[in-house]
């Protein structure tokens, strides 16, 4: 019997193949977008985790120089021979990759190249010029030296023996020392052995995962939105499939199919189909992720210096979560329908109609729900902190607005209805109102999609505007030169000063301030800095005070993290405390920064010499060749403003591409939801249209009105979405970004972009309505007349 019943249920799809396609496609789209975004996030996190474990960051305590960026090798030996179990790490750029030299004999990190013939491979680790890198990185090193490919190594990093790294980097020093967790008894005080080093606890070094949280948070938000929209589709389709099959189910019950068996059969059928949809969605997600991953990788690398492998792996974390969520979502949508079937009176006649009844009780519930969610979002934004809270604020805002939408639409339609006098228009508004409950889920989905679009576009575009202006300020010197020896540094400065060129030497060191690693810069205060640096806040004559050595400038990241602002004292040494004269915006930099005058820096760190120079020149090409000829500085050590700017802007272009792609996809999914709802209604509405038709409105006129209704509703939703989108972007810019990046971006509005989005919304509405409208227009008179067949 089960088989017969199942085939009976399944026959519905045979007659409604479009519904079947919609059901499966809806779930596939929802699962696809969600799992795609999750795949990207998972891949990124795996890359960060690999990086952290390989580099020893975040896992072990480390010793880093108090001053400068290098540790003498003798210091390593001193520490070991005093009983400090440390292991050396040297890091540097080799070609286009980050070269990491480690000592296998003392390293606590399990670095095992994935090689079958381990012996010879390991032999080659010591004392030869073999590097280990993944295939992607190996390509960049092609021809430079022998590479052994190891897939476990993160992209952009090559690993080798510390001695080999020293040879390749032409250095004899080390970068940092990792402290082995288990230390022997009787260890002397660190100060007694290595006064020039400081202890850096694992959680205080820059954690890439934390830094990139905001970026992944944005992606996750998109993923969730898409999923929510996708679930609306599923909800609609399930609703429709039930609605149309109520008669069949009643007949089956009348024929003796037990309720329990029917429920089991329907659940099996729907979940089976859902599994197919989810499965397809996972494949779709894989392709979405694979297409977007290179751009995401480039963005994250550009913003944070964190490298993500460009190749995607089919990881259980994302595909299984996508599958489970899809099934759970379907189950949730299914339950209310099954309850309906269970409660269905066996002998009552079936009255199919739009599934959501527009009862005042339901509206009241929606209003209460929406008010609660809005209050929660306000409360959270006043009291909460952190990314999770931001996520909760956004969720409350979005769901609250979605719940409020039907009421808002309903009220607006009432106003229109009152304003109209012609009978046709009164009917139009009343008929539209009657349809709102049926369309409300689709409209909510559209609202979410449009407002998310506006929110994210505003954030990214504000970021772009601010960043481009910031680049113009910061990249005032036309040429930047890097030197690696003190002699070269002195020569370059002398040479350029004698040639009458304005030169901006940059002194820098890493140090610790209130428990975090920061960069201290010494700058030559001059007209370039005075004219080009824009402050977020500054005392009058801030640069004069800095130049005189009486004040310090800090970047926004440091100011926010250490809770400092203008006038607050910064203790540089026990004897030197300087007040903050200005706070400078420093976008795209994860680290805290302090800036003092060149002379003050030299007093503090007499041994550090400038390794970077900014040069003001009209003719960059000529200046490059002069420097190369006069001092033998290679061309690769010089980089011009345009190159840096292009590289920086490129990062944002790639961010845009990711954003734009996700924006488009959400909108498509929302349009799909609308189409599904309209299609559902088109069939159900024949009884409602027939009387109007008999009164003289032609099919064609009815069709036009239907199209107009779709456009009008979309426009209404669009106007509701604008304020919501702006609020979302405000939350993203002021709460999420400040939390994760440590800087606050000014918010700009982009009316042109919103107008274009409005146009897309209308186009989406027209496309979504096209088929349903065509069906209404082409409804044969016989079908319309049949409505009256039972009337006497």
């Amino acid at each position: 019997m089960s088989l017969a019943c199942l085939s009976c249920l399944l026959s519905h799809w045979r007659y409604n193949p479009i519904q079947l396609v919609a059901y499966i496609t809806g779930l596939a789209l929802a699962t696809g977008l969600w799992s795609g975004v999750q795949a990207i996030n998972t891949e990124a996190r795996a890359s960060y985790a690999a990086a952290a474990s390989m580099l020893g960051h975040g896992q072990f305590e480390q010793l880093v120089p108090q001053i400068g960026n290098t540790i003498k090798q003798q210091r390593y030996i001193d520490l070991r021979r005093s009983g400090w179990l440390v292991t050396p790490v040297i890091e540097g750029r080799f070609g286009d990759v980050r070269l990491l030299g480690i000592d296998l004999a003392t390293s606590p990190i399990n670095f095992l190249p994935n090689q079958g013939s381990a012996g010879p491979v390991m032999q080659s680790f010591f004392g030869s010029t073999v590097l280990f890198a993944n295939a992607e990185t190996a390509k960049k090193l092609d021809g430079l030296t022998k590479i052994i490919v190891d897939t476990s190594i993160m992209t952009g990093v090559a690993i080798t023996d510390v001695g080999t790294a020293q040879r390749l980097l032409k250095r004899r020093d080390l970068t940092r020392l990792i402290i082995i967790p288990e230390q022997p008894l009787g260890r002397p005080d660190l100060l007694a052995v290595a006064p020039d080093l400081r202890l850096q606890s694992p959680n205080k070094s820059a954690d890439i995962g934390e830094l990139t949280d905001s970026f992944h948070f944005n992606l996750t938000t998109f993923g969730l939105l898409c999923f929510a929209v996708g679930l609306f589709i599923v909800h609609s389709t399930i609703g429709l499939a039930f609605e149309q099959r109520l008669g069949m189910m009643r007949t089956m019950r009348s024929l003796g199919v037990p309720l329990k068996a029917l429920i089991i059969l329907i659940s099996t059928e729907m979940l089976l189909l859902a599994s197919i949809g989810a499965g397809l969605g996972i494949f779709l997600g894989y392709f979405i992720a694979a297409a977007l991953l290179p751009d995401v990788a480039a963005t994250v690398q550009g913003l944070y210096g964190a490298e993500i492998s460009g190749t995607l792996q089919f990881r259980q974390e994302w595909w299984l979560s996508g599958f489970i969520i899809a099934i759970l979502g379907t189950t949730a949508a299914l339950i209310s329908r099954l309850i309906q079937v269970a409660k269905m009176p066996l002998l009552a006649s079936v009255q199919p109609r739009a599934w959501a009844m527009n009862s005042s009780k339901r509206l009241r519930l929606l209003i209460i729900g929406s008010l609660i969610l809005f209050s929660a979002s306000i409360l959270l934004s006043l009291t909460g902190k952190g990314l999770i809270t931001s996520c909760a604020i956004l969720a409350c805002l979005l769901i609250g607005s979605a719940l409020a939408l039907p009421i808002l639409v309903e009220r607006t339609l009432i106003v229109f209805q009152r304003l109209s006098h012609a009978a046709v228009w009164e009917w139009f508004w009343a008929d539209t109102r009657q349809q709102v409950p049926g369309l409300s889920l689709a409209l909510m989905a559209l609202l979410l999609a449009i407002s998310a679009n506006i929110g994210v576009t505003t954030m990214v575009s504000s970021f772009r505007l601010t960043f481009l202006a910031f680049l113009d300020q910061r990249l005032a010197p036309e040429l930047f030169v890097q030197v690696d020896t003190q002699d070269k540094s002195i020569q370059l400065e002398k040479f350029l000063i004698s040639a009458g060129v304005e030169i901006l030497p940059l002194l820098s060191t890493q140090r610790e301030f209130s428990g975090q690693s920061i960069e201290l810069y010494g700058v030559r205060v001059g007209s370039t800095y005075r004219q080009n640096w824009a402050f977020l806040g500054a005392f009058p004559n801030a640069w004069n005070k800095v130049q005189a050595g009486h004040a310090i400038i800090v970047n926004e990241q440091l100011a926010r993290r250490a809770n400092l602002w203008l006038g607050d004292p910064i203790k540089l040494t026990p004897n030197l405390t300087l007040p903050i004269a200005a706070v400078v915006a420093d976008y795209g930099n994860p680290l805290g920064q302090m800036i003092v005058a060149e002379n003050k820096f030299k007093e503090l760190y007499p041994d550090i010499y400038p390794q970077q120079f900014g040069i003001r020149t009209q003719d960059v090409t000529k200046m490059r060749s002069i420097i190369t000829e006069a001092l033998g500085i290679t061309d690769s050590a010089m980089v011009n403003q345009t190159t840096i700017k292009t590289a920086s802007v490129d990062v944002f272009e790639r961010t845009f591409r990711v954003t734009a792609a996700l924006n488009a996809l959400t909108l498509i999914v929302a349009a799909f939801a609308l189409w599904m709802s309209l299609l559902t209604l088109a069939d159900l509405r024949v009884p409602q249209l027939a009387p109007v038709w008999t009164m003289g409105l032609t099919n064609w006129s009815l069709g036009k009105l239907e199209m107009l209704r779709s456009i009008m509703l979309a426009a209404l939703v669009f106007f509701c979405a604008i304020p919501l989108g702006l609020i979302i972007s405000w939350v993203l810019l002021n709460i999420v970004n400040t939390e994760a990046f440590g800087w606050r971006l000014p918010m700009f509005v982009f009316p042109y972009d919103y107008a274009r989005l409005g146009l897309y919304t209308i186009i989406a509405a027209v496309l979504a309505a096209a088929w349903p409208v065509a069906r209404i227009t082409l409804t044969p008179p016989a079908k319309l007349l049949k409505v009256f067949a039972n009337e006497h």
Partner: protein
Amino acid sequence: MNIKVFVLLCLCPFSVIAQGFSGLGTDAKEFAAPQPQYLFTFPKDHGAHSDYRIEWWYLTANLNGLDGTAYGLQWTLFRTALAAGEGEGWQSPQLWIGHAAVTSSDMHLATERFARGGIDQAGVQTAPFHAWIDEWSLKGSKFENLTLTANGPDFAYIMTLDATGPLVFHGTNGFSIKSAEGQASYYYSQPFFEINGIITLPTGQVPVTGNAWLDHEWSSQPLSKTQSGWDWFSLSFDNGSKLMGFQLRQKNNQAFTSATYIGSDGVIKTYEGGNFTAQPLKLTSVANRNIPIEWHIKLADQDIDLIVSALNPDAWMDLSIPYWEGPVILNGSHNGKGYLEMTGYE
């Protein structure tokens, strides 16, 4: 797998202990090979011989606390080479390993260190004598008067050693044959150290005194391809005489044995080819292997016939290269104490 085990398996001849010691029987290739009639010159030969593949300075001591509690102590510095000779800085092919342990009847604490050669993290100087790895050291103005230190996460010791007798050369004037095929090493000992100092244990500091035995041995191919491990005994009898004996176990269950008897009058007699025998009497499961912790030792020529039993059967060196090493008690024709090392038990 721990990285160090991996490195050692790949690089170090010594490390092949974990693989049944057969690696010690691999060809010596470009390394120097021990030759008979070698003339030792000191202090040079107290130092490292980087042309040979493997070398160790191996100190074991039987100690007693003020309350008579028996303790054992081990301090070992291994040198193993990827290639013969030295190299500058990190290019050096030498790798150094340190092992330290303290044992009592109910406790065994052990730890290890690793260091690359060429960078001064570990090494051996001869005048004055100084062998070190990290902060562990064995040093003194003369080889006869040394101080010894080692620290682990849960124990430490600082000891003073004074030699009361001459160096003892094993085999034929220090040319110690290890197999019928002719594998050999250079091998001498200083078995006459009086030792005292302080051991720091989790329970506190313990002043101790006793006797120590230092071996210095180097070779390039100490085992033949058919050998799988060894059992090495350094025994001090109550009558003042001493015995060093070892057997290299063959894969065919035969053994190659060798011994050096050091009389209380200082007269030395060496034995090869089966005069010395060691029969396991009692096996105990230690670290999931069956380890003989009681032996029957015989050297008929010296009327030696005794039972050697472990002070602590659990003296398992659970390090990157695992083996058994601990103090033993002697009963039978001679009474006394000593040290036992057993390697290659799978």
